[in-house]
């Protein structure tokens, strides 16, 4: 059907553009891989045939199926590739979108799911089995703009950003924007806002942030993969938004940080919860998860982080796993792979434009992986 084909094309494009970036960085990654020989810290100090990760683990399944978010698809395929080289385990990950990932794990059609937004209480209740959220890496969303005549990097307050997208500020020279940008002459021109027309984890992080900083946004629009936008135009995918912003004078949109970096798009500094203007970078994104209290189930939004150095529009991307996996061989393979990803695998993150998990979050992810059971017993070897 036409609809399906178009959808796949959109996804393909997104994945392809990321893969291109990935291959450009492959050499660096290769050198990195040679330098740091696999010394995965195992779950226990005792000697174990399964750790460090090298070769097949006794009784391990050789194939796993997963589906979900497109945002982490590049690092997931890198991990899958590296892990396959190390162990021979074949993991099939389909980047069908976060919604599809949640649907798949709820319907038990996959071994694991993946999502950029945590499942809601209702979704967890609807699932046929208890599901765990394991943070894997972090990403961020940046406001990108096109204001002819302005050459310095703009600074935006949470108030200004939410008002722009709510449509309560309509001109670039509104005092909400100008006060934070002393010395910059902003034009008396109407603002065109650009948002994602397709459902996306990027929109989820962005609207989640706006809901936290603006009560008006929260009550009128709310947060989600797709929302009822108060105005502006929609572009399909990061490339659609970036293209519309580039083409349309006096416009502002939002894209993934990695997309903005790869395409050399200008983006604004954001004022964080502590009042400091912060440039989005992999370091400031990682800071968003540092020194903050995480809910025990790790289903936590870290936008508008309290960390004074944090970039405020940052978020986790999660693997969704079953608390109890009756198939012992698969449980062993999945827990071992996830363990490797949140430990050894983290070194691939930065090269591919993702922020690695800060230490304290990584150890929380490890706890979650340890807690996965098969037939009531812990599935991860040595845990």
């Amino acid at each position, binding site marked *: 059907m036409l609809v399906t084909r178009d959808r796949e094309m959109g996804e393909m494009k997104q994945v392809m553009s990321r893969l291109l970036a990935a291959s450009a960085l492959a050499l660096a990654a290769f050198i990195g891989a040679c330098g740091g020989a696999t010394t995965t810290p195992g779950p226990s100090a005792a000697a174990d045939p399964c750790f460090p990760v090298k070769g097949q683990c006794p009784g391990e399944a050789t194939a796993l199926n997963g589906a979900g978010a497109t945002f982490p698809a590049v690092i997931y395929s890198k991990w899958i590739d590296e892990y396959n080289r190390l162990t021979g385990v074949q993991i099939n990950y389909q980047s069908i979108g976060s919604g599809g990932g949640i649907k798949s794990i709820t319907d038990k059609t996959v071994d694991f799911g993946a999502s950029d937004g945590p499942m809601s209480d209702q979704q967890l209740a609807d699932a046929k089995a208890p599901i765990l959220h394991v943070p894997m890496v972090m990403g961020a969303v940046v406001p990108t703009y096109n204001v002819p005549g302005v050459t310095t990097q703009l600074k935006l307050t949470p108030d200004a950003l939410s008002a722009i997208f709510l449509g309560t500020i309509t001109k670039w020279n509104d005092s909400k924007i100008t006060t934070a940008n002393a010395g910059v002459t902003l034009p008396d021109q109407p603002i065109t806002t650009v948002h994602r027309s397709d459902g996306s984890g990027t929109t989820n992080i962005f609207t989640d942030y706006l809901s936290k900083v603006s009560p008006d946004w929260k009550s009128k*629009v709310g947060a989600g993969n797709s929302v009822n936008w108060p105005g502006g135009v929609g572009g*399909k995918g990061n490339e659609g938004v970036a293209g519309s912003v580039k083409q349309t004078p006096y416009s502002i949109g939002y894209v993934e940080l990695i997309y903005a970096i790869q395409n050399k798009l200008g983006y604004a500094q954001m004022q964080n919860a502590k009042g400091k203007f912060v440039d989005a970078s992999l370091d400031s994104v990682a800071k968003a998860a540092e020194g903050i209290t995480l809910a025990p189930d790790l289903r936590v939004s870290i936008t508008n982080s309290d960390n004074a150095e944090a970039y405020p529009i940052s978020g986790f991307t999660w693997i969704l796993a079953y608390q109890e996996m009756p198939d012992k061989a698969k449980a062993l393979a999945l827990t071992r792979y996830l363990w490797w990803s949140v430990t050894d695998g983290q070194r691939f993150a930065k090269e591919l434009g993702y922020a690695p998990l800060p230490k304290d979050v990584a150890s929380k992810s490890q706890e979650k992986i340890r807690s996965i059971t098969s037939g009531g017993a812990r599935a991860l070897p040595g845990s």
Partner: protein
Amino acid sequence: MIRSADRIFAGSVAGLALLVPATLLLITALLLIDAFPAIRAYGLSFLTTTTWDPVKLVFGAGAYVYGTLVTTAIAVTFAAPVAIGAAIFLTEYAPRATRAPLAFLIEVLAYIPSIVYGLWGFFVVVPLMRSAIEPALQAALGGVPILGVLVSGPVVGLDLLMGGVILAIMILPILLTVTREVLLAVPPSQREGMLGLGATRWETVTRVVLPYARVGIVGAIILGVARAFGETMAVTLVVGNSSTAISPSLFTPGYTMASAIANQFTEADSDLYFSAIVEIAVVLLLVAIVVNAAARLLIRRTGAAREGLLL
């Protein structure tokens, strides 16, 4: 021996022929099942209310229906006169040797993939619309009653007018091809009789050829409408994808039903949301069936079918 082989062959080709309608029935049935929660929740108001809010789970496809109707109307308004004029030229005026190559060139438009139209529209036509055409329209028509409303508001370039223009180019080939076939199906004796009476070529075309072919041309236009309704990728890239408010201005970013499905299908994470998107698909499918059937009926009535026109 021969007889039973014959019967087996007849039976198997009949089975193959039945596969097609069976697929259609199956698709319709599956879509209806998936759309049922939304149909039950909203009934007919689904098509008339305009709030589409995936967060609060309120779904009304009115803005999508409006966008689809408006872009299609614009497309037909632009494409039909061009197609009919070109078809008259190709059948009545063009030198015989140039008819086939010219017709072929126009039909080539139909073979260009939808996404290519979309990218060309996005990177070439949209900047032109925003910087030149739409401001000019606004300057020329701004003060005129009724027409002024159509061109009011800020100029972005990604809007209903742009969506309609892309569709006009895309439906041109089918409109032209069918209109040309319909005109060719007008019996030569009709023209000869008229010319024999001393009529000019203009009189022949307006008094005989066009009246004879009228119903068939309407059929061609309806086929164009059907194509415009379901077109997805190109429109999605240029129409603006915004369903906020229905406004009479053609310069407002809009949304079509097919674009809404393409954009939102992947991340529809709640059952009702998914179901609402499937309901849009059901509406599109039903409209497509009705419109195509009507068009074929009309074209057949001009006798084109008897002249060997295969549609």
